[in-house]
């Protein structure tokens, strides 16, 4: 039934698309590129697009119509088969898995060799996450592709207290920092969070297969016989222990007591100790969000997994006759600094100015009229970096070379490319989600005692069918591992 549906959809797409392909002929080939926006295209985008097109027409004979869609619009245009040549895709926008299964994206396995610069610009160990079956359907964007989670510490306060700056501070080792602040300001809280708790606190606690339903593989089991055993996070010791620690801090008064009912907590108002997923170098961004100098120290990661890489990908349409031109344009975007910088920052002098040290600073107009989600266009690592707005927090110009080195040897998921299909156990998953929703606000903020709540949650989840969900995902994963092992000798 599903296959039939896919086939019909694909056929339908083909019919709809066949009428709209851009007319060939002389002059540059005109392509359509789908990009993500939370709301609308930048106001000055047309001007930037004209500049980009003048450049690409001369360089590779291609021009492009960049179309920005929000998450509702992209669902509509992709389901109704509107024409495109290149599309941004991920696991939260223009879903990669679904699009591949309905045949929207071209298998690039054999094409990439003709674009060596593009192929070389991608980290070798990320390709596995964009393979489906024996095809390769997208190009991963180089950015923070492995989960690394950091403490973000207030420079003024902790330097003043003579805490040495360290590159790594484990989750437990932060306790003296919290204690010191609590002693100085008994009325205040070093950690101030909203109901979701410390930002990204659980990203690295499991190799997540589905974070919504808290299902994943235990990192600790890697290399042992249990490495392919699907588990609920509630049964993973690392996850439990961290929640116990958070509860302990809550009881000691390190976390704001109203956290479980706080809707949002902007960085500018959160405490002197914050957390966030990022990379060494992201402190310039965190400082501008907090509007105060900060430095960062890693406590988790880097971990490379399917979902960490699928955060930003670019795919080529399977219906376009211009896939060669499309790949050439993707290559230009990801290897040509001028093209990349213009797409990201706009027109030099108008939207940004170039500083003596090679960094750029966005102008007021650039901030209001040319703000794009730069990581959705292509490699975030290419081109000039933005200058820091705080002299105490200098921009590290080597940040991405260093990051790529760390990612190259990052702890890597044993099931890269595997994403479970939960539709056979949808009802059970819905019930599990209800249970998670019920407890998570109090659990994640440390308000409730995990020793009491976790067993209660677990027994309720088991009643709701957790075992069936785990068994189903386990079956799919065994299947995946089996097929992968079968194909390895061929290569």
């Amino acid at each position, binding site marked *: 039934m599903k296959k039939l549906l896919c086939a019909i959809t694909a056929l339908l797409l083909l019919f*709809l698309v066949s009428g*709209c392909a851009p007319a060939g002929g002389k002059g540059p080939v005109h392509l359509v590129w789908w990009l993500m*926006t*939370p*709301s*609308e*295209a930048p*106001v*000055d*985008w*047309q*001007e930037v697009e004209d500049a980009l097109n003048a450049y690409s027409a001369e360089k590779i004979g291609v021009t492009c119509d960049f*179309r*920005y*869609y*929000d998450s*509702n*619009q992209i669902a*509509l245009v992709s*389901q*109704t088969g*509107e024409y495109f040549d290149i599309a941004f895709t991920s696991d939260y926008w223009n879903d990669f898995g679904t699009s591949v299964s309905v045949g929207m994206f071209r298998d690039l396995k054999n094409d990439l060799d003709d674009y060596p610069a593009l192929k070389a610009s991608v980290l070798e160990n990320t390709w596995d996450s964009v393979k489906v079956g024996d095809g390769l359907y997208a190009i991963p964007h180089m950015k*923070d592709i492995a989960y690394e989670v950091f403490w973000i510490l207030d420079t003024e306060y902790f330097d003043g207290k003579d805490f040495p700056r360290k590159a790594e501070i484990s989750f437990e080792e932060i306790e003296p920092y919290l204690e010191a602040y609590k002693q100085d300001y008994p009325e205040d809280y070093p950690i101030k969070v909203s109901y979701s708790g410390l*930002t*990204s606190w659980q990203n690295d606690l499991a190799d997540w297969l589905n974070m919504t339903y808290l299902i994943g593989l235990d990192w600790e089991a890697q290399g042992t016989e249990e490495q392919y055993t699907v588990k609920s996070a509630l049964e993973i010791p690392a996850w439990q222990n961290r929640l116990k620690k958070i509860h302990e801090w809550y009881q000691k008064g390190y976390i704001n007591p109203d956290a479980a009912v706080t809707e*949002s907590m*902007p960085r*500018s*108002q959160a405490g002197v100790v914050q957390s*966030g*997923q*990022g990379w060494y170098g*992201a402190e310039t*961004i965190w400082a*501008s*969000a907090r*509007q105060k100098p900060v430095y960062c120290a890693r406590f988790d990661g880097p971990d490379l997994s399917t979902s960490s890489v699928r955060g930003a990908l670019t795919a080529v349409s399977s219906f376009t006759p211009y896939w060669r031109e499309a790949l050439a344009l993707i290559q230009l975007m990801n290897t040509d600094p001028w093209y990349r910088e213009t797409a990201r920052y706009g027109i030099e002098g108008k939207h940004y100015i170039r500083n003596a040290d090679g960094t750029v*600073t*966005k102008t007021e107009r650039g*901030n*209001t*009229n040319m*703000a*794009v*989600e*730069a*990581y959705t266009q292509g490699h*975030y690592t290419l081109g000039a970096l*933005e200058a820091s*707005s705080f002299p105490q927090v200098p921009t590290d110009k080597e940040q991405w070379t260093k990051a790529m080195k760390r990612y190259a040897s990052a702890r890597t998921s044993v099931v890269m490319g595997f994403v479970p299909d939960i539709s056979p156990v949808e009802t059970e998953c819905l019930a599990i989600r209800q249970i998670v929703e019920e407890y998570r606000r109090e659990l994640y903020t440390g308000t409730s005692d995990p020793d009491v709540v976790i067993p209660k949650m677990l027994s309720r989840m088991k009643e709701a069918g957790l075992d069936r969900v785990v068994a189903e995902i386990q079956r799919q994963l065994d299947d995946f591992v089996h097929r992968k092992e079968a194909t390895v000798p061929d290569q």
Partner: protein
Amino acid sequence: MKKEKKENAVFQEVSSGMEKFNALRPGTNAAFSGLFILLAILCVLPVVFVIIISFSSQASINKVGYTFTPAEWSAEAYRYVWHLRDYHGFPTVLRSFLNSLIITVAGTVLGLVLITTMGYVISRKTFRLRKAYAVFIFIPMIFNGGLLATYVVNAQLLHLKNTFFAIILPLACSSFYIMVAATFFRMAIPDAIVESGKIDGAGQLRIFTQLVLPVSLPLMATVALFLTFGYWNDWYQASLYLESSRHDLFPLQYVLVNIEKNIQFLANSDMMTGGQSGELPTETMRMAIVVLTVVPIMFSYPFFQKYFVTGLTVGSVKE
């Protein structure tokens, strides 16, 4: 002279008697007045509260929360909205306000024409295709093609994308309003009015425009009010059918929805990649958006209100 006086006195006696008869006891009067004043306050107070919050400073909200007496006043939210400029430096709010105005007025007029004419036609018992029309209009009241099919027809078949037509046409005609109109024409317009026109030799169009419509003002005002509100508040059509780069066509509501979406995106995203301009007045902005949405449409209500009168057909026919 004497007689007149006497009559006057009688009249006064009678009328004062009537007044006494209709008068409420002071206690009851006070109780009822109090009740309705309370209800009115319940309606008005939230609006006033929203306006006050929209003029509070973000810092004051962070410190003391929502309050009627903020620690600090600020028009920062409105300043932010006003300073949003399009490519040519024209204020986005003004341009989108004009777009909204054009869409609302054009849509309401068009919708009114379509709905009243269709409603009138199926209300006439002598119209031969009446039943067929009624069924034809009734079906889309229960079913519709769904989002995908509608989108394909409007965007890919009719090529309405990036035009005002795509925003106006889908909302212009509603089966429900047609049914309301038909019922009104059937119940409130006496057949004798139509017949009198026929006897005088008027055509159908003249009967409709010169005899029926003038006594249907309450219906037209009701339908127009709903249409106006519908068009004014709509941003969904714009989000479907306007390319996100066509800022020149955005209606006001869509601009405001986009601001709200941006605020939410910034609040939710952990990684704020790129130099965000630090502090957006988010809470006050939300309330300012409510004010900007509500206030203009509030002023249209009195305009419609004067047509909500009953008894227009009283005395138009003798039966």
